[in-house]
C-alpha cells in the first residue's frame, strides 16, 4: 500500500465539512490579522454607514438654505456638529448625502469595470489575434493623463452623475483589462485548461469556468484601488463643475464652493476634504491588505 493511499484512508475516517465557509478559510484569517486592512475596513465601513444611514443621521434637508444660520462653525451639537455653509445649509446633512453620491459613483465605476474590463481583458488574453489591436487601443487611452481624459469626456457628454461614472469608467477600464489580460495569459497555458479543451469544452466555458476563477486575486485588488481613484476623481470632476449638478450634494462641489471663504470659514473645505481623505485612505489600506493576502507577488514587484 503506497503512502498516499494510507493517508487518504486516515483522512476518510475524520468527519469533513462539505464546503469551507469563507470565514473559516486561511485567507479570511490572514485578512483579519492584517492590521492596516482592518483599519482601512473600519474607515470605509464608517463612510458606508454614513451613506446608508444618511436619512437618519442628517438633521435636515441637505439643500435647505437658512440665511440667518450662515457660517455657523462646527460645535458640539446634534445639528451643528459640522456647522453650516455660506447659504446656511447643514454641513452634516451635506456630508452624509455626499457620501451616498461618492460611493454610488465609485460603485458604478467598479461595476462597469468588472463587467467590461474583465470581458475585454479576457477576450484579449484568450484570443491572441484580438490581443494586439485591443491592447494598442488601451495604450492609446492610457496615454492621456487620466483626469484630463475624464474631464474631456465629462465635458463632451454634459455634467451629470451618470456622465461622471461613464467618463471614469472609460479611463479605468483599459487598466483593468490589462491586469485581467496578464492573468489570463498565465492561466490559459496551464494544463487544466488543456484538459478542459480535451474534454470538449468550448471557448466561453473555458474562459468563464476555468480561466476567470483563477484570475480573481489581482482583479479584486485592482478593483479596490479603482474604487478609491473613482471617489477621488469624482470629487475632482465635481470641483470643476463637471460632476453631479449642484442640487445633489457632492464633496467636490462643497470644496469648490467653500474655497471662496477658506480664510473666514475653513471648515467648509476641511470637512469634505477630510471625508474624501478618509474614504480614499480606507480603500487604499484595504487594497494594500488584499494585495498582501491574495497576491503577494505584486508587493515584491512594487518594492
Amino acid at each position: 500500500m503506497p503512502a498516499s493511499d494510507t493517508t487518504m484512508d486516515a483522512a476518510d475516517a475524520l468527519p469533513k465539512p462539505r464546503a469551507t465557509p469563507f470565514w473559516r478559510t486561511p485567507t479570511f484569517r490572514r485578512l483579519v490579522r492584517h492590521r492596516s486592512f482592518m483599519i482601512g475596513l473600519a474607515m470605509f465601513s464608517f463612510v458606508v454607514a454614513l451613506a446608508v444611514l444618511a436619512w437618519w443621521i442628517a438633521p435636515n434637508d441637505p439643500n435647505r438654505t437658512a440665511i440667518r444660520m450662515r457660517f455657523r462653525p462646527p460645535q458640539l451639537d446634534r445639528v451643528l456638529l459640522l456647522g453650516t455653509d455660506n447659504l446656511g445649509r447643514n454641513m452634516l446633512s451635506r456630508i452624509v448625502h455626499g457620501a451616498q453620491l461618492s460611493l454610488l459613483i465609485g460603485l458604478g465605476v467598479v461595476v462597469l469595470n468588472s463587467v467590461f474590463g474583465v470581458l475585454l481583458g479576457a477576450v484579449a488574453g484568450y484570443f491572441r489575434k484580438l490581443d494586439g489591436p485591443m491592447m494598442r487601443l488601451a495604450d492609446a487611452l492610457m496615454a492621456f493623463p487620466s483626469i484630463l481624459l475624464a474631464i474631456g469626456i465629462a465635458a463632451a457628454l454634459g455634467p451629470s452623475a451618470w456622465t461622471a461614472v461613464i467618463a471614469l469608467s472609460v479611463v479605468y477600464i483599459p487598466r483593468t483589462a490589462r491586469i485581467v489580460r496578464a492573468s489570463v495569459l498565465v492561466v490559459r497555458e496551464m494544463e487544466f485548461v488543456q484538459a478542459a479543451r480535451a474534454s470538449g469544452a468550448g471557448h466561453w466555458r473555458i474562459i468563464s469556468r476555468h480561466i476567470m476563477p483563477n484570475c480573481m486575486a489581482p482583479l479584486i485588488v485592482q478593483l479596490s484601488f479603482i474604487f478609491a481613484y473613482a471617489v477621488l476623481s469624482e470629487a475632482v470632476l465635481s470641483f470643476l463643475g463637471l460632476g453631479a449638478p449642484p442640487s445633489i450634494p457632492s464633496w467636490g462641489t462643497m470644496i469648490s464652493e467653500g474655497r471662496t471663504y477658506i480664510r473666514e470659514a475653513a471648515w467648509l473645505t476641511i470637512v469634505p476634504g477630510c471625508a474624501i481623505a478618509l474614504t480614499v485612505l480606507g480603500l487604499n489600506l484595504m487594497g494594500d491588505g488584499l494585495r498582501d493576502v491574495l497576491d503577494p507577488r505584486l508587493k515584491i514587484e512594487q518594492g
Partner: protein
Amino acid sequence: MAAQPLLSVRNLRTVFGTMQGEVTAVDDVSFDVAPGEVLGIVGESGSGKSVTALSIMGLLPQPPGRVAGGEILFDGRDLLKLPKSQMRQMRGSAIGMIFQEPMTSLNPVFTIGDQITETIRVHERIGAAAARKRGIEMLEKVGIPSPQRRIDDFPHQLSGGMRQRVMIAMALSCSPKLLLADEPTTALDVTIQAQILDLLRDLQREMGMAIVIITHNMGVIAEFADRVAVMYAGRIAEEGPVGRIFDAPTHPYTAGLLSSTPDLVGEVPRLRTIPGTLPSLYELPPGCRFAPRCGRRVEACEAGRPATQEIAPGHFAACIRAREGASA
C-alpha cells in the same frame, strides 16, 4: 488490424512556424489503431510523440502549430476535415485524453465532482443529480476510496496518484472509444505508476476502448501495449507487435533504446547509451535521420530517406539494413 481500424493516421505532417522558419515536428507519420487495441508510441523528448497526439485531438497550439498534410481517420471520418463544433463534440465523448501532470491538470478552484460532472454534462443531456451519480460511479471505478465523500474534495486535497485517477475518471466518463494517454505515469512515483497502469489496463478490458499511450519508458510499453511505434525525429522508425520489437528489433535505434534499458534478469553490466543527441529539427540530416548516431551506418544511409519495409507481418522498419537481422 486490416479489417477496420478505429483510428487511422495517414501521412500526417505537422509543422510549427518559428522565427527561424517552419519546422516539421511530425513528418509523414502513419499508423493504425484497431478497436480495443493498445498502441504504444515511444521516443525521446522532441521526437514528435506528443505533437502527434495533439494533432489527433485537434489541440495543437495554433499558431504556431499546423497540420500541413495527411489524414486522421477516426471511425472512417477525417478529423482534420470536421467542422470545429463537431470536433469539439468528439473530444471528451468519442476521444478522451489524459495528460502528464496530474498536479496541474485539475482546476484548483473547483471540486473534482464539479469537474467530472462538467465533462459529462457538456456531452450529454443529463440532470445535475444524475451526472453526480455517474461521477461517483466513475470515481469508484478508478479506485478512489469513499467516492461519495471524495467527490466534494478540491484537487489540492488529493495526492498525485489520486489526481491522475480523477483525470482518468474524467476522460472516461463518457465512455470514449479511444483514449490518448500522453505520458500518464511520468510524473508519478514508481509504485503509483504501476497502479495507474494496472488500472488503465483493467478499465481498457472492461470498457473495450482503444488506447494510444505515449511514453519514453520502454518498461511501460512492455507491460501495457499490444503494438508499439518507435518515433525518432518526427518519423516512425519501427512499428510492430510488442513481442517482436522487444525480442527482435530490426531498426538500430530501437535496438539502441532497448540496450540502454537495464535488464532485471542476470548481471547488470554498464548500460549502453546511444552516442550523440537528437538532431535539431532545423538541421535534419538529408538521409536517414538516425544515420549520424548509428553504429551500422553505410554510405547509402545518407543518400535518401530509407523506405519503410515490412520485415514480418505487421512489423515495419524504416532502415535499409533492416533485413540483415537484429544486432541488439
